[in-house]
C-alpha cells in the first residue's frame, strides 16, 4: 500500500512545488513594484522550496538526508521572512512609494497612511 502511495505523493509534491516556483518567478517579473514583487518572492521561499524539500524527504525515506533536508527547510522558513521584512523596511525607509491602484506609479500622497485600519 505505502509502496504505491509514496512515489505518487512525491510526484505531486515536487510538481506542485515546481508550479509555485515558476509562478512566483513569473510574479517577480509581472508585478508592478518592489512591494508587490515581494509577495511573489515569498511564495518561492515558502511553498516552492517547502513542497520540493518535503517531496525529497518522502523520496529518501527516514535517514540522515531527511533530517538535513528538514534543517534546510527550517532555516529557510526562519530566515526568509526576516530578509523579506528587511527589504520592505529598507525600501520604505529610503522613501520608495508603494504602488497603488489609484495613483499609478507611486502615489503622490506619501508612501503610507492610505490603508484603512483593520482591527
Amino acid at each position, binding site marked *: 500500500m505505502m509502496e504505491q502511495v509514496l512515489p505518487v505523493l512525491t510526484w505531486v509534491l515536487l510538481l506542485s512545488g515546481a508550479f509555485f516556483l515558476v509562478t*512566483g518567478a513569473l510574479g517577480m517579473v*509581472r508585478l508592478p513594484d518592489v512591494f*508587490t514583487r515581494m509577495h511573489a518572492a515569498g*511564495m518561492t521561499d515558502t511553498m516552492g522550496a517547502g513542497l520540493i524539500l518535503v517531496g525529497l524527504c518522502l523520496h529518501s525515506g527516514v535517514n*540522515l538526508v531527511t533530517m538535513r533536508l528538514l534543517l534546510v527547510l527550517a532555516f529557510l522558513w526562519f530566515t526568509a521572512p*526576516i530578509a523579506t521584512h528587511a527589504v520592505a523596511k529598507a525600501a520604505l525607509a529610503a522613501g520608495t512609494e508603494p504602488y497603488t*491602484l489609484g495613483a499609478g506609479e507611486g502615489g503622490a500622497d506619501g*508612501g503610507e*497612511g*492610505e490603508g484603512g485600519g483593520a482591527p
Partner: protein
Amino acid sequence: MNRILWLWGILFGLWLLLSYHFEWLFLVFGTATCTVAVLVAARMGIVDRESVPLHLVRRGALYVPWLVWEILKSNVRVAGIILSPRLRVDPSIVHFRASQRTDLGRFIYANSITLTPGTVTTGIVADDLEVHAIVREEVDGSEENDMNRRVAALEGEGA
C-alpha cells in the same frame, strides 16, 4: 541553569546530527565546541526566555501545522492573482494591533504574517504592525485576528 543545559543539549544534538560520526575523537571535539559556545553565550547573558524559548515548544507543535495550512491557502490565492491575465492587484498598507505581551510573541506574529504570501510586515512599533497587503479586500482582518489570537495563546501565561 536549566536553560543552559538545554541549550548545550540542543547544540550537541545538532552536532551529532551533522557529523554523524561516533568515534571518541569527534565526540570530544563536539563536546568542547558546544561547551565553549554555551559558555560564551552565558557570559554574554543571552541565554534567556527569548533565545531558548523552551516554554513555546509544546504549544508551538500545534501552531506550526495551522500556520502551514494558512501558508498553503494564501499561496494558492497569490498564485491565482499572478496567473490571472488582468493581474488584479490592489496593494495598500494596513495596520494591525498585536496583542502579544512579549517581544518574542510579536516577533512570531510579525514573521507569521510575512511568511503567508500576500501580506508582508513592513514595520513594527510597540504593538502596532504596519503590513503591506497585495489585495486590500483580502485582508479584512479576520484571519490576522485569528493568527494574533493563536500566537498570543502560544505565549501562554506568566510571560
